């Protein structure tokens, strides 16, 4: 997997000849970039989301079309399930859409395979990125080129059941809290609830909100810049797993069965089912909606409490809008990206549906219409963004994760679970983790 590909193959693949090349038949007659089944004059656009996001997208696109009657947009939307399966099949079959919502976790992989169009040349002309910070744009930048415009800022935060804390007579920790503080309050939660509730869900295997921040506090990245290796040491991971083993032992974190059940399943999240009060899963509160009726609040991922600890938090990019390389309408797609990024009505219509808006200006525009929890969410994000911006010791924002990243993340999760279930010792699992990760990243 992940064999090196030449520029030439990159170019060929993008025009949808991938399969044709593989089969020895010729699809070149239909290797255009327009969406299948559409007339060539339509610009095809796809995104995933929930009902609210679909409605908002459509509203913004309708307004855009009024201003740009020449561009005919044909949107297709769905849930996340199957979204990239379909996209992959379309590309393999030679019918990629022109414009798509892209996952920050996958952008590097598609960019390196030559599926996406670099859009640097439009910046400052038809693509207005005023107010986008450099760390934010890093989310869409692969090997020095911009492949997608971030829809908003994503931060590493914990979601807290504040009403649950208050019920136990505990106070919401300060935003400058440390890992030791997390352990203390989590242990308190378990004690004060009479052993019914744990403090925080087991973060030993979760990456984005959690271990990556810890590694950065140690001055290490998760992946190296080129994405070919792990950027952290075995010592760091060992220390991390030992911290969480201690958390489980102190009943500050739930046993592995609860962790395992919540894997990829928000509905079984420890906070949702009332088994914990802190969670690293940011999905528990999404875009103005929640599946728990608790009053929620938000905190940054804790600081390191060892000497020489750096700022580990960073700002990420929500989702991206990207154009495909095979498309003949990249210029039009870029116009749409720019519209989403800067137009006041577009920003107001979108609210928080694609994350917290990327620019100060946009955040001000929507502030008045937000719910109480939305406001808390945005306040915490603002706090983190400012703290990261001021920090002199923070590492550069992580590059988009390389191909195989999701396998490594999954491995991290499974490894922590194996330790928690007592199937493996930390030492033994460390070796296995580093071996298998190397195998995945080398391809």
């Amino acid at each position, binding site marked *: 997997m992940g064999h090196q590909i030449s520029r030439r193959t990159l170019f060929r693949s993008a025009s949808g000849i991938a*399969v*044709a090349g593989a*089969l020895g038949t010729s*699809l070149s007659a*239909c290797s255009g970039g327009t*969406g*299948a*089944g*559409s007339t060539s004059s339509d610009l095809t656009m796809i995104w*995933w*989301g*929930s*009902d*609210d*996001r*679909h*409605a908002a997208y*459509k509203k913004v696109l309708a307004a855009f079309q009024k201003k740009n009657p020449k561009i005919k947009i*044909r*949107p*297709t*939307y*769905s*849930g*996340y*399930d*199957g979204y990239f*399966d*379909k996209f992959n*099949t*379309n590309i*393999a*079959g*030679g*019918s990629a859409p022109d414009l798509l919502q892209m996952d920050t976790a996958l952008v590097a992989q598609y960019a390196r395979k030559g599926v996406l169009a670099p859009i640097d040349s439009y910046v400052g002309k038809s693509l207005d990125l005023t107010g986008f910070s450099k760390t934010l744009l890093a989310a869409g930048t692969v090997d020095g080129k911009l492949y997608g415009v971030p829809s908003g800022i994503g931060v590493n935060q914990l979601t807290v059941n504040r009403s649950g804390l208050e019920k136990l007579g505990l106070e919401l920790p300060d935003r400058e809290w440390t890992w030791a503080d997390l352990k203390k309050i989590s242990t308190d939660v378990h004690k004060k609830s009479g052993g019914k509730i744990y403090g925080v869900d087991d973060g030993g295997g979760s990456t984005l909100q959690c271990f990556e921040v810890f590694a950065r506090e140690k001055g290490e990245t998760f992946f190296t810049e080129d994405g070919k290796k792990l950027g952290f040491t075995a010592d760091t991971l060992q220390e991390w797993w030992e911290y969480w083993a201690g958390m489980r032992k102190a009943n500050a974190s739930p046993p592995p069965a609860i962790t395992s059940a919540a894997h*990829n399943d*928000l*509905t*079984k999240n420890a906070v*949702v*089912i*009332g088994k914990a009060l802190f969670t690293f899963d940011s*999905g528990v509160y*999404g*875009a*103005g*909606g*929640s*599946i*728990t*009726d608790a009053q929620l609040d938000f905190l940054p991922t804790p600081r390191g409490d060892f000497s020489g600890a750096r700022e580990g938090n960073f700002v990420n990019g929500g*989702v991206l809008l990207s154009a495909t390389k095979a498309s003949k309408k990249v210029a039009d797609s870029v116009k749409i990206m720019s519209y989403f990024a800067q137009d006041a009505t577009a920003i107001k219509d979108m609210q928080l*549906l*694609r994350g917290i808006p990327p620019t100060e200006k946009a955040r001000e525009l929507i502030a008045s219409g937000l719910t109480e929890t939305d406001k808390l969410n945005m306040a915490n994000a603002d706090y983190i963004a400012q703290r990261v911006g001021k920090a002199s010791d923070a590492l550069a924002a992580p590059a988009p994760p390389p191909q195989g990243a999701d396998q490594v993340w999954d491995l991290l999760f499974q490894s922590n679970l194996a330790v928690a279930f007592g199937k493996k010792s930390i030492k033994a699992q460390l070796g296995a983790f580093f071996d298998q990760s190397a195998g995945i990243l080398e391809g």
Partner: protein
Amino acid sequence: MSAITPTRPSKAPPHNAKRPLRKLRSATGSRRIFIHTVLVGVAIVMLYPLLWMLSSSLKPDTEIFTQPGLIPSSLRPENYSEGWSGSGNSFSLYITNSLIVTIGAVIGNVISCSLAAYAFARFEFRGKKIWFGLMLGTLMLPTQAVLIPQYTIFYNLTWINTFLPLIVPKFLAVDAFFIFLMVQFIRSIPRELDQAAMMDGANPFQIYWKIILPLMKPALITTTIFTFIWTYDDFLHQLVYLQQNDKFTVPLGLTLFLDQTSGSSYGAMFAMSTLALLPTLICFLIFQKRLVEGLATSGMKG
């Protein structure tokens, strides 16, 4: 036709035979009650998930997972209206699209598979065993492995974003499952019936039409039920071949409610999942009735 003349009459339970008629009747009555009790008990276990789904479809999102009991503490029927109107397209569109695909597939499968099955069950021809093996072989490769090559075929036919890739293959008997099913059924129909018809001068097509088809009604009904339900529930192929939202079917429409990254409408999803069950349930109820009639009415006379 020879009937079974069972072994020894002495094997029959003697007390049963000696029982007076009235007692016998009450015995079967209590037996009937017993059967009903067993059936109701098992049915409740079987139905629990449906009830849970129904109750969840009436709860607010914040309650579905935090209070997973069957009785909602507050009702939220808006889940249905919100789910039905959806964002832009009404859910009725997805149901209509699903029905088009499903009914097309049913007709295709019943016709094409019964033709092929008749040939396999009743004729000897060159390479029959190899063809039959090949037919079974097409059942054995996982769908996921042939999805991409199949996609390129339909892409070249410019059938993407139409219902054709979902319907036309059914007219070409690609569902080997049903061919095999029908072969097994035809083989349990006595050949004497074919022979008699042949003596009367019927050609093979007439035999197929007048004798085999009526006699394999249970198999055809089974095919109808399964094709209907499996096509209706099929996510992967519909996902890949139907691109635009106005062509979406029920399984695709249901995904529109769920997105772990931007918040989901679980209540609406459960509401529409419940509603979406109705067509398959109705289909099952209608056709299972035919299963009861089965041979009892069509009889062995052909």
